[in-house]
Structures are given as C-alpha cells and as structure tokens.
C-alpha cells in the first residue's frame, strides 16, 4: 500500500474532494434524520397548512330590469396584533375619533399583554367603511415616518393596528320592497342568514358555499388554492318603478284614510309575476336590527302573504264564478231582494240592511248585495260551492316563493266548525279568511281565461354564469274561459253603472269592492272594517291585477269609498309605467 508521501498531488486532491463530498452527503443525511429534523418535520406537518374559511360572496338580488336591490359592499375588520403594539393610547384615540369607538374599551383591549399562542390578536371594531380605513391608513403612515417601529413610546404610533377586508350585505334602495326582499343578518359573520322574503326563501341558493379548507403554505402546493364560487343571484319579477309608485300610493292612502295598515299587490294575471308588493310597515333593510321593534307581536313582516283576514265582498266574485260555471245563474238571472234571507236558521242582511227589490246578477254585484249572493250560494249548493272554493285554492297555500306564507283552513260541510249558515256568510267573504295573494291567485282565473296562475317573485336566477328563467305555472282551471269572460264583463259593467271611484278614464277595468266587519271579542263591529278592492285591466287583454287592502280605515269604513280610489290611482300609474295605451289608442294601433 502506498504511503501518503508516495501519492501524487492529483491523488491527494481526489481524496480531499472525495472526503469533502462524503462529508456533504453525511451532513445531508444527518440534517434529514436528526432529532431536530424530526421536530421540524412535525412542525411543517402542523403548520404547513393554514386553516382558512372560504365563503362565497352572497348572491345579488335584482329587479326585473336589472336594478340592484341587494348587493355587497367592502368593509373592514379592525384589530391589533398585540405583539407589535407600540402605543395603545394612540390606537384608542384614533378609533374613538374616526370610528366612534369607546376610548376606554379600546385602550383596555389594545393594552392586553401578548401571550404566544393564546393572546395574539384582538378585534377592536368591525364593518368599518373604507373611507375611515383610508383615514387610519394615512395616520399610520404619518406616524411611521416620525416613529419607525414605534421605538419611541412617547410618540404616537399605530403599529400593531391591522385591518382585514370583507363584504357586508347592502340594500341600495333602503326600504323599497323590504317586505319582499327580507334581510340578511350580516352582523353575525359566522351564522348570518336570510330572514323573511326572498332572502330567507332562497337563502341556500344565495349563500353559496362556506367551508373550512387547508391552504398549503408550501409554495409548491399553492396551485391548489381552493376557491368558492359566488352564490346564485336572483332576478325578481318586481319592477322597481312600479314598486316605488305603489308604496308611495299606499303610504298616502294609509295616511289619508287613517287606516292602521295597508297592502297593495300588483300581479300580471297572465303569468303570475308579482310586479309590486307593498305593505306597511316597512323597514330600512340596512338596519335590520330594528325589525323586532317595527314588527312587534301580531304584525307580520309581509301582510300580503302572512296575514289572513276576512276579505268581505271581494269574495263574491268567486261565488258568482261558481254559480256561472255551474250554469246556476246567468248575468240576467233575476232576483228579488227583500233585504233578508234565512240560511241555517240565521237571518242574513245586506250591508245597509235595506231591501233592493228586483235585481239581476250584474246589479247584485254592483250593489254588493249579501242577500242575493247568499241566495246564489244556496242555489249552487254547499257541495259544489266548496268544491269551487277548493279549486280556487281557498284554504290552501299559494306556495308563493316568499318565506312566511300563512293560510287559514276552510271549514267545509262535515267539519265540526261548519254550520249551514257558513254557506251564506262565506258567499260574501265573511267566516272565511284569506291572504291578499290568495285572493289574487284565485281571481287570476277570472282575468286569465279560466286559467289560475301561481303567483311568484322569482323571474330568473344566475348560477355558475348561466341564467335560468322560471316558467309560468298554471295551477288549475277552476272555471271555463267563457265563465271568466262573462264574469269579467259583469264586473266591468257593474263598475261602469255604479260610476265607481275605481274607474280610470280611457281604460276598461273590472273589479269588486269589499268591506268586511272585523270581529272583536267574538262580535262583529260595524265600526272596524277591512276595506278591499280587487280589479284588473284592460278587460280585453288583462295585463295587471291589483289588490288593495286597507285595515281599519277611519275616514270611511267602506271599501267603495276608501279602497276603490286607491285602485284608480294605482292603475293611472301602472298604465304609464307599463306603457299601456288607452283602449281607443290601443285599438287604433292594433288596427294599423
């Protein structure tokens, strides 16, 4: 074997390099396998991923023309990273002056000692506007220039104050269509959800997904950052301008009549699209926390769907529809009104307790005679009469796509609470309770050639970049087209002959008033009424159907006095907003 002396310089160099390479390999293996390396591996496994909550942006809500009714705005959460806080007093002063926070609370929060793994970050304020954040950012930068890293504790410093952006639900129209939209409890960032209206009904669709995911901190794995697609957006059937106009008319009507509350619903009887749904009271959806103060016990969020009431004489159109459809009567059928009729041992009187003498079915509707309609119901017979009410959906939910729909069960022959007199009282809308939207659905059959349409507020929804339109749902054909046309003509004639306040010059409308006494402690009070009106037009091609309900009006108890003019006012606005020319103009345009 050669001694080192005998080795040539290249051999020595080779040995040195080999040893050096061997050392490197040894060190590499050592680094990979020593105790510290195991700890490091464990740490990497524990901290190699960041647990993050990904949440879809809540979907938007638009009106039928694409106007935004509910969206999201950028706001900020303000907090302190305790490890870096240099001057808690500056943070407290800044937040008190800019955000309006309580100085003492902020000072106490920001002065907390930093404890690794336990006390690291404290939230100081949330839902702070971007304009305020801009002010704070400017201040922070200014302080940093004079006191970098907050080394001088006597100088002001906002070091440690951080902010994180997130989204907050916003309703740009404030209280417009609030009864339809509902609200999202955005203050609860973990468990916020939609309440009432479409916000509740379509909560799952709007919310999208929310899940906790592991985001890798290893840059090699970063291409797998999970994302959450935005929640579906809704396009409603509501027309913003019609809604605004309707709410304005309703507010004026409630004020001028001294009514406790009111409701107006506008629907397209051809397809069931709700164009406007206004109800009092309404609320600014951006301040949803006031809802419990506004909607106290007994006041539903949306009376149009959630409050059943005895509709009174507007219900007579269903009685007459059943009678015409069963060929029990024709428009010219005569009836001599003696002012009283006895059914099931109970006397039924007219609204004025008068006897109106010889009448036809048209004048019975025109004068809204309870005695006549009770007689009509008895002629139809209880079996057929209730069969028709069932066909019209009375006693059933309309299944409108709004949260909180209520229904009052209809007592029918055989039920313990049904008595023979119910046939008479039900015929003129007493002893039976409906919601305005139920009445609209039932009456849509009369305006729509006998076909009853499902009322709905969702026109389309947008999911994964595709727009899915909803279709018209015909939920039944309770009467024939002939009956529907006949009854529409009868109601048109009765309004004309009555010179009703519901009439609109130049436009043919059909409709019926309703005045229902309200039961107080089991006794009907003639001073407290529900005044209603249901009408539609133009009669040859109905494009709108309007339901008016004024609750306990003070100026007059009669629907013909307080509700009919509101219908007229509403239609005058509708024909402009819906571009419906007067009948004569329409005829001449069609002639061309």
């Amino acid at each position, binding site marked *: 074997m050669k001694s080192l002396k005998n080795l040539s310089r290249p051999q020595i160099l080779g040995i040195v390099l080999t040893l050096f390479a061997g050392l490197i390999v040894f060190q590499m293996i050592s680094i990979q396998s020593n105790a510290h390396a195991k700890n490091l591996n464990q740490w990497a496994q524990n901290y190699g991923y960041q647990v993050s909550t990904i949440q879809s942006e809540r979907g938007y809500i638009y009106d039928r023309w694409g106007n935004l009714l509910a969206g999201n705005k950028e706001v900020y959460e303000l907090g302190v990273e305790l490890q870096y806080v240099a001057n808690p007093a500056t943070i407290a002063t800044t937040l008190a002056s800019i955000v309006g926070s309580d100085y003492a609370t902020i000072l106490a929060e920001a002065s907390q000692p930093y404890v690794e793994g336990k006390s690291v970050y404290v939230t100081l304020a949330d839902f702070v506007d971007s304009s305020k954040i801009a002010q704070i950012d400017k201040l922070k930068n200014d302080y940093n220039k004079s006191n970098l890293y907050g080394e001088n504790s006597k100088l002001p410093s906002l070091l440690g104050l951080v902010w994180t952006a997130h*989204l907050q639900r916003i309703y740009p129209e*404030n209280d*417009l269509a609030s009864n339809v939209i509902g609200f999202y409890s955005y203050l609860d960032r973990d468990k916020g959800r939609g309440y009432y209206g479409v916000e509740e009904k379509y909560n799952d669709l709007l919310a999208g997904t929310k899940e906790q995911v592991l985001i890798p901190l290893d840059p090699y794995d970063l291409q797998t950052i999970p994302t959450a697609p*935005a929640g579906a957006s809704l396009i409603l059937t509501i027309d913003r301008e019609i809604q605004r106009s309707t709410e304005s008319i309703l507010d004026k009507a409630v004020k001028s009549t001294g009514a406790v509350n009111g409701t107006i619903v506008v629907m397209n009887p051809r397809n069931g699209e709700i164009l406007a749904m206004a109800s009092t009271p309404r609320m600014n959806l951006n301040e949803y926390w006031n809802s419990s103060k506004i909607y106290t016990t007994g006041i539903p969020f949306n009376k149009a769907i959630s409050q059943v009431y005895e509709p009174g004489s507007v219900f007579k159109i269903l009685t007459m529809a059943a009678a015409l459809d069963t060929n029990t009567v024709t428009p010219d059928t005569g009836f001599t009104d003696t002012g009283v009729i006895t059914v099931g041992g109970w006397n039924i009187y007219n609204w004025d307790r008068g006897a109106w003498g010889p009448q036809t079915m048209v004048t019975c509707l025109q004068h809204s005679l309870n005695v006549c309609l009770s007689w009509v119901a008895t002629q139809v017979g209880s079996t057929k009469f209730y069969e028709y009410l069932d066909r019209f959906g009375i006693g059933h939910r309309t299944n409108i796509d709004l949260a909180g729909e209520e229904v009052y069960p209809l007592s029918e022959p055989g039920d313990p609470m049904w008595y023979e007199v119910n046939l008479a009282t039900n015929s003129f809308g007493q002893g039976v309770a409906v919601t305005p939207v139920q009445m609209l659905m039932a009456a849509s059959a009369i305006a729509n050639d006998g076909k009853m349409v499902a009322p709905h507020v969702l026109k389309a929804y947008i999911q994964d970049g595709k727009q899915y339109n909803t279709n018209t749902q015909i939920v039944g054909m309770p009467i024939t087209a002939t009956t529907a046309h006949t009854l529409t003509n009868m109601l048109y004639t009765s309004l004309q002959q009555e010179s009703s306040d519901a009439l609109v010059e130049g436009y043919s409308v059909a409709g019926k008033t309703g005045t229902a006494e309200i039961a107080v402690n089991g006794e009907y009070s003639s001073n407290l009424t529900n005044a209603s009106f249901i009408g539609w037009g133009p009669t040859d091609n109905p494009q709108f159907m309007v339901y008016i309900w004024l609750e306990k009006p003070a100026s007059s108890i009669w629907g013909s006095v307080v509700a009919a003019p509101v219908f007229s006012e509403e239609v005058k606005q509708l024909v402009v907003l819906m571009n419906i020319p007067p009948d004569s103009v329409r005829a001449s345009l069609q002639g061309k």
Partner: protein
Amino acid sequence: MTETRNTSRRPTPFWKKINLPQAFKQAPWRSQIQLVGLFLLGLVVVLLVAGIYLTISGQAAEAGLDTYNLAYERRSLERSIADYKAQLAQISSSAVMEERAKSMGFSEANPDNVIYVSVPGYTGRQTAILAPPPGITQTQGAVVKTEYRDSLWDWLFQGINRLSSSVRGNS
C-alpha cells in the same frame, strides 16, 4: 541515398502508429488524468442536473407564490367589484334618480300627457338578461400556451408525430 516513393500504398493513420499500452507505461499520469477527467465529467453532469433542478424548483416556488398573490389579488378585486356595484346602485337608486329628475325639471307622467307612437318592429322593453342561458357553452381559449405546459418529452413526441404524419401524408 536513394529515396523511393511507394505511391500505390496508402499512408498508415497516426493512431495506428501510436502504441497505447506503451504510451500509458511511459507516462502513468495519463491514466490518472483520465480518471480525474471522468470524475470531473460526472461531477459536471451532476452539477448540471442539480442546477437545472434548482432552477426549476425556484421557478416553481416563485410561480406558487405568484399564484398565492394572484389569488389574494383576485379576492381583493372581487370585493372591489362588489363594492363598485353597490356604489353604483346607491347613486342610481330610485330615490336618488327621482330627486335628480325633479332637480332637472322633469315631472311625473300621467295618462293624460303621454303620447303613444307605434314603432314597427319594437317589441317593448326586455327584462334583464344578465348571463347567457344554460344551452350556450362558452369556449374558453387556453390561458397558458401549450409551449409553456408541455414537457420536453411531449414536445419531442409531438414533433415526431407531426413529422411522421406529414411524411405519411406526402407518400
């Protein structure tokens, strides 16, 4: 001295003249140089591979961080877009628009002062279409060109395929 030239025979190549065993015997450092040369060649190859690996790894890490930053930026932009939409909706809300219209001297129309004109072919105002219907599929162009996604092997095989198909096509 007579010089003869044999023009019929070809000259012997120089490497045939070298007696290699003898050459290595006379200069033993030649074999050492050969060994060192081979070692260095191996080292260069290893370093080359390691260098390429490090470069690719560095680029991959950078791309990963870019992805992270872009994802962050995307979320930020999505929030900004949502915020702008909300701001736009607020400044064009019905109440604001009505106020603006009134301040500009407009008044509410009523049935008496509306003039209707027949416009041939006009079917009326169409309701909102904010996205394509489900039947339409959008074809998206590749975001990253194939040149940046293919490996060396992909490129090689595709080249061979193209070449062979063109040859088959010509024949």
